[in-house]
């Protein structure tokens, strides 16, 4: 008997005349029918992330007649997203992903109730956010959030339609269903930071999240309808380059720390720490050729705290005319002749547009005997994204 995410209830919403025409191709399917469509209308689904996986996932769920769609994201649309995040358009660059996604979803289906959670999912808010939903679809991009979503789903008893992608390869399953295995049964421990490259580092075929996100959507719909065979206890592997699909058996691990018979994880934990992303590891991971990489958040914190930071901007004058964040402008090629203007006794933070040129100059300064030199990771672009959106992007 397939599981059903929506419990039997006499209070399923009625379908309106508009619904009847909109969903007519569903209504004539015996597996959906009137009752199934009413279940979809009653359903509340949470999409964690509105990126590569979340775009097709949310689109199809909205089209299918899901009543309430929750979206979790705090990012803004970047030009590099558009190769795969089809819910966002060129005109949305710089706009909040949640607003962009809501507009497209409501245009597709005005009856849809969109709930926007503009936040990073954390141990402090995950249970509160997830508890109102029937099914969760995890389309995140990092291990701490994967484990967080998994554990929250297990603790709350919510099934998780899981999808994950890398380059040409995808994985799909349904975790945390009643009696089914969870993500931790498959991966008890995360890989150490830096061992597994991210999509930003390793790249991803733009179409692949389309394939995998639509599979997640399919599983969500099946869970709500209670029809078919959900991917519970099965891991589907997608190799888009060779177009091969394989299926592996997943077992519920009786010793699983969260869903096993004697769980040791009974509340949400510190997932950054669990994934080895401690302050020390973060610092180590953020050394590049011996140069510390500081984030824009860290720089902002130091400036706000009144710490002595000598910010050197190594971009060209024309760039500084477009946007600046208060660094002393010494274009990269002038640096060797203008070392006298950079105080050796103070900490130096070098920045440019994206963090590339400034890294080379930071390495150069180190060779010149500067002891405290850091590179601003992501440069002024990251500053504009994460700290001050009024700083123009170029």
């Amino acid at each position, binding site marked *: 008997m397939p599981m059903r995410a929506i419990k039997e209830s006499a209070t399923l919403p009625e379908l309106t005349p508009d619904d009847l025409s909109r969903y007519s191709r569903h209504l004539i399917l015996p597996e959906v029918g009137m009752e199934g469509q009413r279940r979809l209308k009653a359903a509340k689904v949470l999409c964690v992330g509105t990126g590569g996986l979340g775009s097709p996932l949310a689109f199809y769920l909205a089209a299918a007649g899901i009543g309430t769609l929750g979206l979790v994201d705090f990012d803004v649309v970047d030009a590099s997203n558009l190769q795969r995040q089809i819910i966002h358009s060129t005109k949305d660059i710089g706009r909040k992903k949640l607003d962009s996604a809501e507009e497209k979803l409501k245009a597709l289906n005005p009856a849809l109730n969109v709930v926007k959670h503009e936040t990073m999912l954390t141990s402090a808010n995950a249970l509160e956010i997830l508890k109102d939903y029937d099914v969760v679809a995890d389309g*995140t991009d990092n291990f701490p*959030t994967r484990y967080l979503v998994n554990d929250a789903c297990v603790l709350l008893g919510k099934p998780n339609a899981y999808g994950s992608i890398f380059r040409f*390869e995808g994985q799909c399953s349904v975790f945390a269903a009643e009696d089914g295995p969870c993500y931790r049964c498959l991966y008890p421990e995360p890989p150490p930071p830096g061992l597994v490259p991210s*999509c930003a580092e390793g790249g991803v075929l733009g179409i692949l999240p389309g394939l995998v996100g639509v599979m997640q959507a399919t599983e969500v719909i099946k869970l709500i309808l209670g029809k078919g065979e959900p991917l519970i206890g099965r891991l589907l592997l997608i190799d888009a380059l060779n177009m091969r699909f394989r299926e592996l058996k997943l077992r519920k691990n009786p010793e699983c720390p969260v869903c096993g018979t004697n769980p040791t994880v009974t509340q949400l934990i510190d997932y950054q720490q669990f994934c080895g992303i401690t302050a020390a590891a973060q610092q180590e991971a953020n050394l590049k050729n011996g140069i510390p990489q500081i*984030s824009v958040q860290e720089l902002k914190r130091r400036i706000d705290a009144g710490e002595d930071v000598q910010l050197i901007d190594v971009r060209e004058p024309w760039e500084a005319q477009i946007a600046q964040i208060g660094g002393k402008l010494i274009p990269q090629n002038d640096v060797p002749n203008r070392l006298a203007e950079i105080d050796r006794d103070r900490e130096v933070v070098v920045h440019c547009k994206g963090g*590339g040129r400034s890294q080379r100059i930071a390495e150069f300064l180190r060779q010149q005997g500067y002891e405290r030199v850091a590179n601003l*990771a992501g440069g002024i672009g990251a500053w504009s994204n994460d700290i001050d959106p009024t700083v123009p992007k170029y």
Partner: protein
Amino acid sequence: MTIIIPTPLRQYVGGQSKIEVAAPTVKGALDALTLERPELRKHLFNAEGKVRAFVNVYLNDEDVRYLPQKEDSAVMENDTLTIIPSIAGGLQLSALSLQSSAGTADLELRA
């Protein structure tokens, strides 16, 4: 037998997606695979020589951890061993701002 190499590990095997080895057991096959590939070995095994907890090894469609003889399970010529590492991708890196920013810098450096 055939060992299927997942995308993240292909860089350690010259980009191959499959490798044929001859070995009597799962353990033997993994040893044969990594004998002359120390970098790959480091990714698959910990210092004590155990398969790392975030790497799953499947003999055909079954998790080796759940086979009665685990890594000592016998393998036949037609069997397939699949290595399944964790992948986290889904959307643009954003939740981990430090890593995200470093990744962006990386891309720009290469560009």
